């Protein structure tokens, strides 16, 4: 190599170039080649990563799929065990657990329809949410009261309405109603809980109680419609009080409560297998007015009733020792009623015992009559005339005898003013009311009203319907029989007020020269009353 020749090299390979331009060009070319190599490497690794993510049979490791299938199998076994333990029969436990397991396997093995399957499972869960929730609550180790499961079911439907609108809410309501109707309804299909659940299992008991709860809700609707509740009577009473038509009274004190009572009523077994008799027993007690030799005629009967309040046809039982009694002062008899469970049919029902008896309730009120001038005289002196004479408010109250009927009476404000040589006509208001919540009136047989000497009765509620009247020892007594009373007491569960118009014969005859006359109006009512007691029973199918 001669002296003075410059050579240029680039890179590490030691290659020389004559000019700098050649060297730069070679350098650029080398850099470009290195960049290209790096890009290719990056692309190759990305491709490798993408292909590794694809679930292809050829791509998923065989080990992971097997683990999932194993998990599904375990879930299937666990599901079957839980459902079976809860009380679902084998066929249904296998069917439900197996069905869900199949769907899950499908999701794993066929990824394309997985989305559809998930959606399907979601829809099933939502629409049958009430039923599924009921199942879930039944699986709890403790018994959840049927009231709460009812609230849960209604709550899911309410949420559906609120969250997803009317369409979804209505769908949910109809689906749940159908499912519960099939499960708990009166028709016993293969899907009915008595067929699908094992007897006395948690699911069976939960379904039974839920059915009873639904029946009670239905029954209360019927009761309200019939007007047989204390609420209905209370409303009627309040209306009469507000309009000033309610006449008050106090019950006469007696040493024992008067009437007929069914005490300690129960069944020997609340759950019986169909074909086994149902033994309903009670203690029949009667308390008559001990100061007389009167007896009470009582008729008993017993039968079955559905939860909706309908009597079960042909379910009348046999009563021992007898179905008719005549009891007197504080007599008591144990009574048994044997019912045929086959007439009841499988499922919950009520065993009912009824007692019907004749009874009489009496009432009276003292009227205080005073010349008007004396009343005014006291008023000017700012004094109460009756108080000045020693008569208190208690003396002005009507008194009725103990029993199922409450009779209030009123004569308006007392003392009743009397004008000399002027006719006077106090109106007697009478309020009848059911005094016992556990019973009802069957019929009214006789109503007798007695007016004191010097006063005559001329009509009731403005009608001259008092035909059967006679005067004994100056007291006028009018009697109304059953036929007349049917119209007056149409509604046997009632609070009813009638007004008796009267006419005074003579102020002088009434007062007889005294500044005050005390005269009583008396009333008695003969009627037939019925009391009953109900006990819940469940008839189980033969296993």
């Amino acid at each position: 190599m001669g002296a003075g020749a410059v050579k240029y090299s680039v890179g590490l390979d030691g290659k020389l170039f004559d000019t700098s331009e050649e060297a730069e060009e070679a350098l650029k070319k080398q850099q470009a080649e290195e960049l290209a190599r790096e890009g290719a490497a990056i692309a190759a690794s990305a491709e490798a990563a993408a292909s590794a993510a694809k679930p292809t049979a050829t791509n998923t490791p065989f080990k992971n799929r097997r683990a999932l299938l194993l998990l599904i199998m375990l879930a299937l076994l666990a599901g079957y065990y839980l459902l079976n333990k809860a009380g679902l029969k084998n066929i249904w436990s296998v069917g439900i657990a197996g069905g869900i397991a199949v769907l899950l396997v499908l999701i794993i093995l066929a990824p394309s329809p997985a989305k559809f399957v998930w959606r399907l499972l979601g829809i099933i869960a939502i629409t049958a949410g009430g039923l599924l929730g009921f199942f879930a609550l039944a699986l709890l180790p403790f018994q959840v009261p049927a009231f709460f499961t009812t609230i849960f079911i209604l709550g899911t439907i309410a949420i559906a309405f609120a969250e997803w609108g009317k369409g979804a809410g209505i769908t949910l309501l109809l689906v749940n109603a159908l499912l519960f109707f099939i499960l708990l309804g009166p028709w016993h299909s293969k899907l009915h809980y008595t067929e699908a659940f094992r007897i006395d299992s948690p699911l069976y008991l939960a379904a039974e109680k839920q059915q009873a709860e639904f029946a009670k809700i239905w029954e209360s609707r019927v009761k309200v419609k019939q007007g047989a509740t204390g609420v209905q009577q209370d409303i009627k009473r309040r209306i009469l009080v507000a309009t000033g038509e309610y006449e008050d009274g106090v019950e006469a004190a007696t040493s024992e409560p008067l009437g007929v009572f069914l005490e300690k009523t129960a069944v020997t077994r609340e759950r019986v297998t169909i074909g086994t008799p149902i033994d309903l027993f009670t203690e029949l007690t009667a308390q008559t007015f001990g100061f007389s030799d009167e007896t009470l005629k009582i008729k008993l009967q017993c039968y079955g009733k559905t939860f909706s309040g309908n009597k079960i046809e042909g379910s009348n039982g046999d009563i021992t020792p007898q179905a008719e009694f005549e009891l007197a002062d504080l007599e008591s008899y144990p009574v048994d009623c044997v019912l045929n469970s086959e007439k009841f049919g499988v499922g919950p029902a009520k065993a009912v015992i009824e007692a019907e008896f004749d009874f009489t309730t009496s009432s009276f009120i003292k009227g205080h009559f005073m010349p008007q001038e004396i009343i005014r005289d006291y008023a000017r002196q700012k004094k109460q005339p009756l108080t000045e004479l020693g008569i208190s408010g208690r003396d002005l109250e009507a008194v009725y005898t103990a029993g199922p009927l409450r009779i209030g009476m009123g004569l308006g404000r007392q003392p009743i003013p009397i004008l000399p040589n002027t006719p006077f006509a106090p109106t007697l208001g009478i309020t009848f009311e059911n005094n016992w919540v556990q019973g009802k009136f069957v019929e009214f047989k006789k109503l007798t009203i007695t007016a004191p000497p010097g006063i005559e009765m001329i009509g009731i509620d403005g009608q001259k319907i008092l035909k059967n009247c006679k005067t004994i020892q100056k007291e006028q007594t009018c009697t109304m029989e059953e036929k007349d009373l049917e119209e007056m007491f149409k509604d046997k569960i009632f609070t009813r007020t009638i007004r008796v118009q009267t006419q005074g014969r003579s102020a002088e005859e009434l007062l007889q020269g005294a500044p005050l006359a005390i005269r009583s109006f008396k009333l008695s009512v003969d009627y037939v009353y019925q009391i009953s007691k109900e006990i819940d029973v469940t008839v189980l199918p033969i296993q």
Partner: protein
Amino acid sequence: MLQCFQFNNKHRSAQMRKIIFAILGILLACQQGIQGPQFDSTGTEGVVVRINPASTQDFLMCQESNMLLDLNNIGLADVPQGIFTVITEDQIISTTKKQGSFALDGRSPVNPEGGATQLSFRLKSKTLPPQLETYQTPFIFHACYPYNTYASIPVCIDPDVNNRQDKSCISTPVSGKGGQGAPVAVTLVEPKITIEDNTVIPTFIISIANVGRGRVVAPELLGGCGAGTEKSTIRAFVQLQDETLKCAPEAIDLRAGETKITCRSNKNFGTNQGTFTTPLSIHLEYGYTTTSFLPLTITRLPQQKQC
């Protein structure tokens, strides 16, 4: 013998003296013996009625019982004829007498406790309403009688309106506190001096009130035992030094409570006449009613249906 005679005489004299002293002592003791009841001319009651403890309040159905009432006139006026009425529930209780009369003297110095009498009533219970073990019914005794109030109120007549002379008394209202032994009392007398033609006419405002526990009625309607009236219920007679004063209103009605009447003298007193005290006599005539109430309880026996 003379000595024996003299000894005997002396012995007899001593015995006589002892006997005389003993008699005098007994007479003295009788004079200053146990004090009788003092006579008190105040009080606010007339005839009072008390239920005698021997009366029967509780009895059985269809049985008889006795009711004894003690009447006592503890006011000062006599009751020559009072009427009573018994009020019962005739459908439950019957009684032998429902009306009657009585007469009772008022209290006086010779009869400081007033006249008293006992009325007896035989009661019989009838059949109770059915299904009742016990029954409460009232026994009301209502007495009506004429009565009088006599009040003698010392008043000061002061014609010296110019205060020229010494006064022996000062004309001030006089209270009738404590009553005058009757249920209607004069509670206050206010003297007023009216001057007409340079002479003084005494005028009195008299307050009258019913301070007893009963009711005032018109004396003319006592036959109906106080059956009420729209007319006056009290007649007043007021006298000053033998002169009957003219009072207004003439009709005194106590139904609204305490009432005032104004009574005026017809006599004129000159302003030069001296101040003096003289009694103002007030006589009130009226009828009065007294009521007593007793609750009776009738009990039915077991197995007892009717009488």
